[in-house]
């Protein structure tokens, strides 16, 4: 008997805990845990989408801006569309290159080789097009010298006008429209992602509210005892808030962990993604930190919601 008592004594002495009343959330907790995990999973997905689209756009934008493609058409002029002979066309191209090279604002002028044009066109026209006797335009890759001039200020239209005046039947594609289309897509995707994030926050808050309300109802007798012993309303609200915080934080990390697991599988187990757009997406440490912060933000939001819910109920019950 004495031995038994000692065991109890030592067990008791080792009990160095902070008091928690997590039981007050009770049975409703499983649902909240599950929903938080799911919501954080989706929220992380949405955020990763936002980041990815951002990176994609940035890298494409960087590649494309400051670049133009000068298209020398095998016609005499814009009005006279008779096809030039091979020699005359070659002359025309040479003249164009000379004129372009004379411009100090342009840093590089390169004719895109037939091979490259063929490889660019082959997906659409099939192989063997080099043998087809249709006159193809010659493409010249031109870069704006960004040490001489601000790329945004370069007047492409003026250059195009000059080329047409002096040589004729020349187009310049400066990718601006392409970039702005891309930007619209980017904005749409990001808007959708943010919309999803807001929807998730609302859903989670409502779940927290209902869970807290249900728990309050279920634990009414205990809460009355708390009150009879002189607990402040805020003390009671804090017990709920802290129980909800722990629960949602665990749920959130489960969601994040699942996302990481699936992301890992996709990125590292599937080799087929090499050479696709995934190459463009390199997350910075700030991005990773932001993603890692999601569980804490979710749990904080849940905590505040729980606390306010309880204070509101107690205020009404009073």
């Amino acid at each position, binding site marked *: 008997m004495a031995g038994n008592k000692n065991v*109890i004594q030592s067990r008791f002495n080792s*009990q160095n805990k902070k008091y928690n*009343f997590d039981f007050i959330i009770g049975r409703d907790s499983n649902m909240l845990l599950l929903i938080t995990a799911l919501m954080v999973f989706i929220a992380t997905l949405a955020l990763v989408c936002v980041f990815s689209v951002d990176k994609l756009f940035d890298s494409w934008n960087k590649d494309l801006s400051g670049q133009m493609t000068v298209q020398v058409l095998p016609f005499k002029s814009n009005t006279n569309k008779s096809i030039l002979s091979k020699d005359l066309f070659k002359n025309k191209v040479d003249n164009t290159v000379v004129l372009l090279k004379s411009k100090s604002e342009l840093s590089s002028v390169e004719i895109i080789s037939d091979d490259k044009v063929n490889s660019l066109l082959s997906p659409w026209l099939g192989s063997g097009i080099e043998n087809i006797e249709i006159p193809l335009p010659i493409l010249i890759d031109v870069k704006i010298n960004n040490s001489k001039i601000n790329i945004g200020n370069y007047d492409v239209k003026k250059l195009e006008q000059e080329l047409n005046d002096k040589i004729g039947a020349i187009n310049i594609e400066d990718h601006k429209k392409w970039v702005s289309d891309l930007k619209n897509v980017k904005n749409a995707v990001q808007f959708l992602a943010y919309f999803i994030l807001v929807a998730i926050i609302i859903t989670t808050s409502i779940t927290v509210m209902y869970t807290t309300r249900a728990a309050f109802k279920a634990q009414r007798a205990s809460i009355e*005892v708390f*009150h*009879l012993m*002189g607990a402040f*309303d805020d003390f009671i609200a804090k017990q709920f808030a802290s129980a909800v915080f722990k629960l949602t934080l665990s749920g959130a990390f489960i969601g994040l962990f699942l996302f990481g697991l699936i992301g890992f599988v996709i990125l590292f187990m599937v080799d087929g993604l090499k050479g696709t757009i995934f190459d463009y997406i390199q997350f910075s440490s700030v991005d990773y930190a932001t993603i890692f912060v999601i569980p804490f933000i979710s749990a904080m939001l849940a905590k505040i919601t729980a606390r306010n819910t309880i204070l509101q109920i107690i205020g009404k019950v009073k």
Partner: protein
Amino acid sequence: MFSNNQHNNMAFSKDHSRNSDNIISMRGVGIRYDQNPEILSDVNLDIQKGSFHFLTGASGSGKTSLLSLMYTANPPVRGHLSMFGYNIDSLNRDQIALFKRKIGVIFQDYRLLDNLSVFDNVALPLVIAGKSPNYIRKYVPDLLEWIDLKNYIHAKPSILSGGQKQRVAIARALITKPELVIADEPTGNVDDDMAVKLLYLFVELNRMGSAVIIATHSKSLIEKFNYPVLGIHKRHLFLQER
């Protein structure tokens, strides 16, 4: 046994709105549930610091109802209630909460929290009052030892017998050394020896300065301990002559 004469003999304080010697003060209080007729009418009562009272009356006469008015500190449907010299209507919720911490209550139905261990149940008032874990570890085991429950420190109340639950409830009410102990049938579920032992706990507490009010049916206890007896008869509260 009861008479209106005795009613008039009750020692009421003259200053009935603010007397710091009164822990609880009731004037013309009526108690009823919903729209039912009053179960107690015109209650005038002062519970003074350091006093000791028994409260008797037939089952259903309103003992629990009267005591709960003291510990819930809800404004009465009729009459005036003050706590520690303050009219209940003039106090906000947090102020009332602070006063409640000075009152230890043993409920007739114990109201232990089944999700907490015996230790945590007894520690609860200290936790609520913001005492440190060290303080709690120091005082709770001693009291559990005194009421013979040291071996049940980690048990959940649901496995305890009625008498054991009652003792946990007593420990929980006394742990804060309250200024007023309200005990509703605190010996209803224990044998006579244990009842006397528990009553000595209240007596000891009273000697150290706590006011005590005990509702009980036990005539033998009342006779054994020579304290004033409040009785409920015909919807009125009287001070019984001994």
